């Protein structure tokens, strides 16, 4: 990208498309849905310019299936949708885990249930963890800004390629539609990972041989290596193993280990004023921006508040939350849903800290004041807040 075009005013959904292209995505299977459509629109225009393909499929089941087909052809591929479409895509997400297809699904979360409302929410964060049948560990990132949407799209594509599995980017109507200045990094500043490829003798090749790192080196179609993707429980050759307890157990545990072996590398937690904090706010996505403002306001009032923002929703940052619970007395968890990640915080806190859930489901973004009110309400009595 020429230097004069490096700084632009973009909405999150557009930054997502640009991030994908920077990561090497050359196939997008779309289906229109508010508030995610701008990613598809940007891809429809931009992908052919870089030799890539955009196709609008007949539904979300088909759009993710087309992504799977392109991925098997060796092309980096993704889709973007919003909550009702995400429900349909869970079919292929579950299948892509066991089929070990690298792909990225972006969910620009809207308010649910049903058709719900096209405004923002964080109502699908538990669905991203548990929605796909099988209940295997998932990887999901959650951006709080337009630039972070760009960066995390690249990260999602990279991890999908490296681990050969579907990765989710859980953004929302606020970040997706918000316009911010974004300064694109230079191409040489962007780290791009590619899927592992086989190198041995094609005659000896077994497409699902997990090797030493649990990641099979599945070749792109059309070469000398014969590939059998299989979404039924299968052996190292990709042959269905029918009702064999040994292979069922192995399949589930190996696919799980692909994620759990990389928890430390995947975990991305940012803290603000946490060093001496006695009250912590735990947040993700755009809510964390409001929470940061409220934490700073609380400090001005003499309350020792801090923020932990997680970029990695899944795997959940258990170790970090456990340590935080030992340090602080109260953890406030603001979310644009009825309280979902707060359950994870509670689980990891294990009774070490009091947990305060702050929820908002009226389609409006949580404000700094809403979080601040909760901080003040739970502040230890010895810290008498200054009058406001």
């Amino acid at each position, binding site marked *: 990208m020429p230097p004069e075009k490096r700084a632009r005013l973009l909405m999150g959904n557009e930054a997502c498309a640009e991030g994908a292209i920077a990561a090497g995505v050359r196939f997008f299977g779309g289906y229109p849905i508010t508030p995610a459509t701008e990613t598809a629109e940007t891809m429809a225009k931009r992908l052919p310019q870089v030799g890539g393909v955009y196709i609008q499929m007949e539904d979300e089941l088909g759009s993710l299936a087309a992504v799977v087909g392109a991925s098997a052809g060796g092309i980096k591929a993704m889709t973007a949708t919003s909550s009702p479409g995400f429900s349909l895509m869970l079919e292929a997400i579950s299948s892509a885990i066991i089929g070990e297809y690298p792909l990225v699904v972006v969910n620009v979360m809207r308010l649910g249930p049903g058709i719900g409302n096209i405004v923002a929410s964080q109502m699908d964060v538990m669905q991203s963890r548990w929605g796909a049948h099988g209940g295997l560990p998932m990887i999901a990132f959650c951006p709080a800004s337009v630039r972070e949407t760009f960066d995390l799209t690249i990260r999602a594509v990279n991890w999908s390629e490296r681990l050969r599995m579907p990765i989710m980017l859980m953004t929302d109507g606020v970040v997706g539609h918000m316009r911010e200045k974004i300064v694109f990094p230079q191409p040489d500043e962007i780290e791009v990972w590619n899927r592992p490829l086989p190198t041995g003798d094609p005659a000896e090749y077994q497409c699902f041989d997990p090797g030493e790192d649990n990641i099979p080196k599945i070749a792109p179609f*059309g070469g000398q290596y014969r590939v059998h993707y299989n979404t039924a429980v299968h052996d190292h050759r990709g042959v269905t193993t029918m009702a064999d307890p040994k292979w069922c157990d192995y399949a589930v545990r190996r696919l799980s280990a692909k994620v759990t072996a990389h928890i430390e590398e995947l975990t991305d937690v940012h803290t603000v004023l946490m060093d001496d904090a006695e009250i912590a706010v735990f947040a993700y996505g755009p809510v964390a921006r409001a929470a940061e403002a409220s934490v700073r306001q609380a400090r001005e009032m003499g309350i020792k508040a801090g923020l932990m923002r997680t970029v990695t929703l899944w795997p959940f940052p258990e170790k970090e939350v456990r340590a935080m619970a030992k340090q602080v007395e109260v953890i406030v968890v603001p979310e644009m849903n009825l309280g979902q990640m707060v359950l994870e915080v509670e689980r990891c806190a294990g009774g070490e800290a009091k947990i305060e859930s702050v929820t908002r489901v009226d389609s409006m973004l949580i404000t700094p004041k809403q979080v601040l009110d909760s901080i003040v309400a739970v502040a230890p009595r010895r810290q008498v807040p200054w009058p406001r």
Partner: protein
Amino acid sequence: MAKIKPLKIIRERYFKFERFPTTYCPGCGIGNVIQALSRAVDDTGRPRESFSMSVGIGCYGNIGNFLDFDELRLAHGRAPAMATGLKLARPDLNVLCMMGDGDATAIGGNHLIHAARRNIDITAIIMNNHTYGMTGGQYSPTTRLGDYSSTAPYGMVEPSFDICKLVEGAGGTFVARTTTFRMVQTIDIIRRAIEHPGFALVEIESQCPVIYGRMNRWGNAVAMLKKQNELTVTLERARTMSSEELKGKIVVGVLAERIEPEFTAEYYKVIDRAQRSADGA
């Protein structure tokens, strides 16, 4: 028509013979279909690694355990959508799309008609045995009126789909029907379908003697094939028959064949155009 090659050659080139015997019931039509398919692939003279198959779920969806082409498998009904993604991303590949009747016309019906509408260069080979065999013989959208199935214990009440009419109406540019009884014709038609530059459908009327046949008391595979052959009418003869006479008959032959712009080629023209204008900008 190409010479019929010894089975041993076909088996060594395209099958995982070490996996035999297959898991299929005795007399199942799948063996006929995949033998015809591999012979047709061989007859095209195109390199075997240029062929990929997108398969559905069901008995027919398990052919990849025995037939050795690069294989896409995901979920029930999604084979045409996967094939669409693969062909668009990799226009150099010959993409086969293998579905049973339930897979293609019930759960995957939407993907089938849209692949046909786009006229994307995919060869869809639908094996129609009129039932969900793997789950034990439930009725499908192609189960004939009055036939028995495990979920139609009083006989099928719904009218059935004509797969060829469906695909032709949706825009498929090569539409053919054949049967497992007519192996030589089936090989020839599949080869023509592969060579056709656009969406090609081959519907293969097949037999499920152990489940569908048993429930309807039609006897063994041989009896079913004989019955199938009695009902078969060539396209030429069908043209001389009234619609009343054609009721319940299986009309075989190439029912439609025409050349229309192919989607992948058209889209790559868009890429050329977009790249030229992006360079100029």
